[in-house]
Structure formats: structure tokens, C-alpha cells
């Protein structure tokens, strides 16, 4: 309400996802890699393994360039991007957790300096001093995860904070420990995978094989810890959250199972690599492992984001930045008067404030193609019933009159053609499309809000009559406003859906 909305030609989710996933993939390596370096250095020094020490020095250079430059700056990038995409939520987090961030900053400063000194210290410092700096680096880096993990977990499971508003209740929330366990495993896994990548560039030798085997063990160990953490995490998630996701966003659960499959594939690949003699470790194989790891970890982050819908902080703030506590007032008094930034076009302002955080008009999760062939009355009806739709939408935070204004504006963007004209469809295809647009966003035959029992036994005339009265069944049910061609096609489709109908 207090912020303008960035009307970029890009999906918010896509932009956030891209920056966040890339960042965490590097930043978790920055932690696990630190441990890998000191543990392996200690081991190599004990054995007097010069080849391994040379490799570790090489890995440090890669490590510094990847984590200090790319990892640290994409972390800053996340800060920048969340302020653009969800300024209200960022405001909430900053106010609630500013000292947590300040604490994390102290670890960050130590981490950066220790990494630089560790890197430049390879040729300058005595082994003991060098290892000490390495351990300082790792401890500082891990502590920064310990802190940030609390804030990230809070955004999905604020727990008792909802009742108390107390810092520690929000920080040590229900998914804090399982997520920390999971991410710790990921750090170790990525340490192994990145090391394999760097080792793949080494000349073929026995030493290379030994490094590949050691790195594979790190990856496998990390994967094991991460999978245990993942199962713990699933158990810690509120049952209602998962149940809602299962009902309204089954694809989220599909991601969850893909996560398991990817983890299995990753484990198999790593085991295979560990068994192969060193000279078989090629850049392509190591890069493939990295890609698998990226997809696997990315899936987790996407799952975490998706399952949170429609909230950005459950029971506190919706994904579009509207506070749950303000909803009744906004629905009574209106959204437009509460908006600090206005373009002068009420319909567009309502779209930007209510929809733009997830949808674009003609791009990512586009509304224009979806509404093509419908009209203002229907669009306004769907807006009023947005929270009933599949995909977990927040409720419209405006008055009924404002839903009409937004409906008219959106309808004006799609051209005012009939569904048949807009889509070029006819017959059963037109009926199926009409059902998908007008009914399917809330009703799934044989599934969620199953329409079939209500429609059972109705003939074509009764179904047509039902369509006329649909808008009166509930204020959240939009009226049927299609033309005669669409009506006939939809009725045929509904008849076909009934038991014994022509599918």
C-alpha cells in the first residue's frame, strides 16, 4: 500500500527464483567448501601429500572467485530484488530481524576477510596459521547460515510469533532445525560437487583419482544428511499447509516427488563416479553432476516458495503485500484510497496492487490470454472469488465496486471478442476451453469442489438454465456471460462429463 509497483516485463517469481536459486547454489558451497578445504588440507599436510595441497590451493582460487565475488554479490542482489518485488514484506523482515541481520553481518565481515587471508596465505603462512584462518572462515560462514536460516524459515512457518510477536519465537520457528539440518547437508554435498568440478581439470593421475573419491564421499555424505533433513522438514511443516497444497496445487507435490527422484539420480551418479578410476573423471561428467545438484536444490527452493502461497508470511501478509489484518478494512473502505502511489488509472492501479506480484498482462502467468473471450462482468466475478480458485490466490482486498473497475480494465485489455472468436475454437474444444476458463479455476471434475454431483442428471435445458443462475449461487461465483455458441459448447461439455456422457 505504501509502495509503488514495478511494472516490469518480467515475472516477479521468475526473477526472484533465478537470482535466489543461483545465489544459494553458490553460497552453500561457500560454507561447505570452507570445511572441505580445511579438513582436506589438514589431511594432506599430515600425509605430506603435495599433489593434494596443490589441488586445494587451486580450489581456493576458484572458491574465492565463486563465493567471494559471485556468491557475496548475488546475496546483495537478493536484498536489492526483494526490496523491489516485495517491499512491504522486506519492511516486515527488516523491522523484525534487523539485529539478526546485523549479527549475520559481523560473521560475513569475518568470513570475507578470513577467506582473503586464507587464499593469500597459501604461500605465506605457516601450515598451522593457515589452517587456523581456514577454520575461522568456516565457523564464520556456518554461523551466517545459522542466522539467515531463522529468517528464511520464519517466512514459511512463523509459529508462535503469530501470537507473541517475539523475536525468538519467530527465529526458532517450527522448521528452523530441520531446515538447518537440510541446508548443512546441502553445504557438504556442494563442497563435494564443486571439488569434483575443479578436480576434473587436473591431469590424469592416481592423485586425481584419490581426490575424486574423497570429493564423491563428501557429496554422498552431504546428500545423506540433506535427505534426512528433508524428511524431518516435511514432518515439521504444518499439516494444513501440505493438505492445502495437495488439494489446490498438486504440482507442488509433484515437485516434491521429483526432488526425491533427482536426489536418487544424484546419489547414483556420485557413487558411480566414486567407483571409477580417476582418469575417467571428465569435465562433462562433473558438470552434469553440478547440473543435477542445481536442479535438485532448486526444486527444494521452488517447493518452499510455492507451498507458502498465497502468503509471503503466513497469516500475516499476502503475496501481493497486503496485510491480513488490513483486509476487512480495505474490503469495506476500498483499496484505492489506501494506495500511496497512483497512476491516474484506477483499473490499472488495482491491477498493479492486487495482481502484478504474480501475474503480468501478456507474459509470465499472463492474464490477458486467460481472460480472452470473456467480459467485464465475468472478470469482476472471478476477482471477487479469487481466493476460491486453485493455485492459492489471496482474496481481493477491495470493495465490490472496485472489483467491477478492475474487471472492466482487464476486459478492455483483452478486446471484447467472444470466446470462439478470441480462440478460434469450435465444438468440443470450445466447450472444454469454456469449462477451463469459467469453471475449471475452482472446480475439478472428480476432484476439488467436484461439480459433477451438482450437475448429475441435468439435461441440456437444465444445464443451460443452471448457467443462467450460477452467478446467484454465491457472491464468489461469477455469472455465465458467454454468447449462445459458447453456451451450447459448454453445455455439451458438461453433458459429456456426466457419468455415461460422451467423453
Amino acid at each position, binding site marked *: 500500500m505504501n509502495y509503488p509497483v514495478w*511494472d516490469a516485463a518480467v515475472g516477479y517469481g521468475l526473477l526472484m527464483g533465478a537470482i535466489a536459486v543461483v545465489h544459494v547454489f553458490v553460497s552453500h558451497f561457500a560454507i561447505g567448501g570452507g570445511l572441505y578445504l580445511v579438513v582436506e588440507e589438514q589431511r594432506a599436510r599430515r600425509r605430506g601429500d603435495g599433489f593434494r595441497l596443490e589441488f586445494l590451493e587451486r580450489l581456493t582460487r576458484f572458491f574465492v572467485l565463486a563465493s567471494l565475488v559471485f556468491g557475496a554479490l548475488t546475496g546483495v542482489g537478493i536484498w536489492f530484488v526483494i526490496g523491489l518485488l516485495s517491499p512491504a514484506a*522486506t519492511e516486515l523482515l527488516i523491522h523484525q530481524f534487523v539485529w539478526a541481520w546485523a549479527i549475520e553481518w559481523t560473521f560475513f565481515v569475518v568470513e570475507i576477510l578470513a577467506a582473503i587471508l586464507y587464499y593469500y596465505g597459501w604461500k605465506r*603462512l605457516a601450515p598451522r596459521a593457515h589452517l587456523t584462518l581456514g577454520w575461522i572462515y568456516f565457523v564464520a560462514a556456518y554461523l551466517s547460515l545459522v542466522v539467515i536460516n531463522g529468517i528464511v524459515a520464519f517466512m514459511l512457518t512463523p509459529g508462535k510469533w503469530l501470537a507473541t*510477536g517475539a523475536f525468538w519465537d519467530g527465529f526458532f520457528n517450527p522448521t528452523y532445525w530441520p531446515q538447518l539440518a537440510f541446508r548443512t547437508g546441502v553445504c557438504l554435498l556442494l563442497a563435494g560437487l564443486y571439488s569434483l568440478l575443479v578436480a576434473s581439470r587436473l591431469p590424469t593421475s592416481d592423485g586425481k583419482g584419490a581426490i575424486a573419491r574423497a570429493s564423491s564421499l563428501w557429496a554422498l555424505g552431504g546428500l545423506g544428511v540433506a535427505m534426512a533433513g528433508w524428511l524431518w522438514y516435511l514432518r515439521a511443516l504444518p499439516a494444513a499447509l501440505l493438505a492445502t497444497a495437495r488439494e489446490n496445487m498438486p504440482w507442488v507435490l509433484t515437485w516434491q516427488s521429483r526432488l526425491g527422484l533427482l536426489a536418487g539420480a544424484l546419489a547414483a551418479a556420485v557413487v558411480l563416479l566414486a567407483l571409477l578410476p580417476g582418469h575417467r573423471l571428465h569435465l562433462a561428467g562433473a558438470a552434469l553432476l553440478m547440473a543435477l545438484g542445481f536442479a535438485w536444490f532448486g526444486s527444494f527452493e521452488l517447493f518452499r516458495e510455492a507451498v507458502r502461497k498465497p502468503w509471503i508470511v503466513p497469516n500475516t501478509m499476502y503475496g501481493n503485500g497486503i496485510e491480513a489484518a488490513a483486509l476487512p478494512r480495505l474490503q469495506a473502505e476500498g483499496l484505492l484510497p489506501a494506495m500511496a502511489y497512483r497512476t491516474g488509472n484506477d483499473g490499472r492501479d488495482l491491477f498493479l496492487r492486487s495482481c502484478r506480484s504474480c501475474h503480468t498482462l501478456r507474459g509470465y502467468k499472463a492474464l490477458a490470454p486467460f481472460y480472452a473471450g470473456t467480459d467485464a462482468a465475468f472478470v469482476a466475478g472471478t476477482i471477487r472469488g479469487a481466493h476460491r480458485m486453485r493455485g492459492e490466490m489471496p482474496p481481493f482486498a477491495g470493495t465490490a465496486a472496485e472489483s467491477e473497475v478492475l474487471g472492466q480494465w482487464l476486459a478492455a485489455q483483452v478486446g471484447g471478442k467472444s470466446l470462439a472468436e478470441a480462440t478460434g475454437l469450435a465444438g468440443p474444444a470450445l466447450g472444454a476451453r469454456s469449462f477451463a476458463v469459467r469453471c475449471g479455476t475452482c472446480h475439478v471434475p472428480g476432484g476439488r469442489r467436484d461439480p459433477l454431483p451438482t450437475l448429475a442428471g441435468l439435461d441440456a435445458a437444465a444445464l443451460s438454465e443452471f448457467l443462467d443462475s450460477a452467478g446467484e449461487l454465491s457472491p464468489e461465483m461469477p455469472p455465465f456471460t458467454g454468447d449462445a455458441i459458447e453456451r451450447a459448447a459448454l453445455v455439451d461439455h458438461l453433458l459429456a462429463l456426466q457419468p455415461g456422457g460422451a467423453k
Partner: protein
Amino acid sequence: MNATAYDFLSAPLPLITLLHLVTLTLHFAAMGALFGGTGALLLLRVDGKWQHPRVQAMVRLLPTLLALTVTLGVAPLLFLQLVYHRQVYSAAIVSAWLWLALVVAVIVAYYLFYAAAFASRADRLRGGGMLAVAFALLLFVSLVFSSVFTLAETPATLAAAWARNATGTVLNPEVGRWMPRWLHLVAGALTLGGFTLSAFARDDERLAAPARRFTLAAMLVAMVLGFGALFGLGSALPAFLRSSGLWWLAMSLLTALGALHFLFRRRLVAAGALLASSLFGMVALRHVARLIVLGSAIDPSAMAVRPQWDVFTLFLVCFVAMLATIAWMLRLFFASDTTPRSS
């Protein structure tokens, strides 16, 4: 206030302001050494410059300085957001693509600094091409920062700019107001950069003397532009002249001149201390000016305070531990034998 209300400060405003001013001064000092130092290296005319051992030593330090600048920039941004979140986020949204491009620019500049440092280490640094590109990228970063933060101070301009174009591709339209401030900041950074280079070259007058002259010239330009930036305050200028900002201005000018005096007498510690004081004065001045320009748009002292003293105490403990660890690590590193060891 209900439990989940978040419009509060988790420590008293003076404490947050102090933390912001101190950390911002440190950020500007690091930024001046990096950005201004790169500028000084590029602009200074000395024969065989890139082969000079002190120049090479400074080039090798640039990636570390960038890491320091970024790291020290996180804290002031955090404390700034705590109080001025509505102004800062809103202004950033108006320039969203440029705001995001900053991150890309800094990443590329960072890699270029590393490339130059590696080249210097291998004695292959023949010119300032990479550094010139990195400098240009940082110049872009400073331009966007100046535009966004000045736009954040003028809510009416901000709202009008967004209403005209919400795609995130707009700079502050009041160019006359922020351009002198931006140029002043650039000249200020060059002053700090010149000082850094003179400190690096303290044993070699062939480099140190021109570096001192460079510092003097940059400081004079910064002063002139600084007055231009003050006049850019427009109708807020009389209020500024009646505020504590005037004292900060006088203090900054005097300490800056004192720094020059000691610099030319080659007393670098005294010069550095006075320069740091001058920088703090400028940061405080900037803060006072911001409050005056924002006027009735925001009154930070009216914000609710709900202190989190337990977490703050933990922060203080960590902060002290951080300083101790840094001191210990630096001592360990620099006390060691500088002869390269074989691993």
C-alpha cells in the same frame, strides 16, 4: 500495537542513526580508496606507472578493497532501510532495472579487478585497460546510487516519476539537484583515492608527489561541487543553514584542510585521521540535509520503538568479537614471514 505489527524500531532512533553514520563513513572510506584509488591510478601521469612496484601493490589490493567496500556497505544499507524503507524502496522501484544492474556492474568490475591483480602478480600488467572498464562500471554504480537516494528524498517527484513510467527504467528527473551531488561524491572519492595512493607511495617521491597534488586538486574540485550540491537543496537551503548541518560543514572543511596540511608535510597518520573526520562530518551533514529535505514526509522520531535489547546485546558481543578476530587475523597474517613458502 498487535503482535504481528512491524512498523516499529527495534532500538532507539539515536542508536540506529549513530550505527548508520559510522558504518556509512567506513563504507565511503573503503569506496573512496577503491573507486577513487582506481581513478587516481588511471589519471595520474607518471612514466612507467604500471611497472612501478607501489602501483602494482595497489592494483593487487583492489579486489580486497572491493570486498571491503561491499561488506561495509551492507550495514549502513540495513540501518537506512530500518528507518527510511518507504523512501528507499520506492525510489529503487522507479529505477528498478538500473538498481539491479548495479549488482551486475559490481560483479563484472570485481572480476576485472581480480584479472588486473592476477596480471600484476604475474608481472603482466602493461596498461590500465581493465581498470578503466572497472572504473567506468563503478562510475555507473555511483550515478545510480546518487539518483536513487536523492529521488528518495523528494516523495512528490518520486510519485510523479513513477506515475509517468512504472517500468523501472527512470533516473531521478531532477538532474540539476542530484548531478552536483553525484559529481561531488566522485570528486570526494578521488580525493580519498589520491590520499590512498600517496600513502602507498610514501617511500617514493616520484609517485607520492604527484599523488599528493592529485589529492589537492580533487579536494578543491570536491569542495566547489559540494557547494553546488548545497545550492541544489533549493528552498531547503535556508533551513539547512540554520541547522546543525552548518556546523558539520564547517568541521568537515576545516578537517579536510588540516588533512591537506599534514599530507603535504608527509604526516600520513594525522592526515588520514583528519580526512576520516572530515568524511564523518560530510556523512552527518548529508544526514541532516536529508531530514530537512524530507520535511513533513517522514518524522523518524515519531516511529514506535519496541527494543529488542537481548538480540541487540548479542549483536554487540558479536561486533566486539568480530573486531577482535579481525585484529588477530591481520596480526597473524602480517606478522608472518613474507617469503613465499612451498606448499
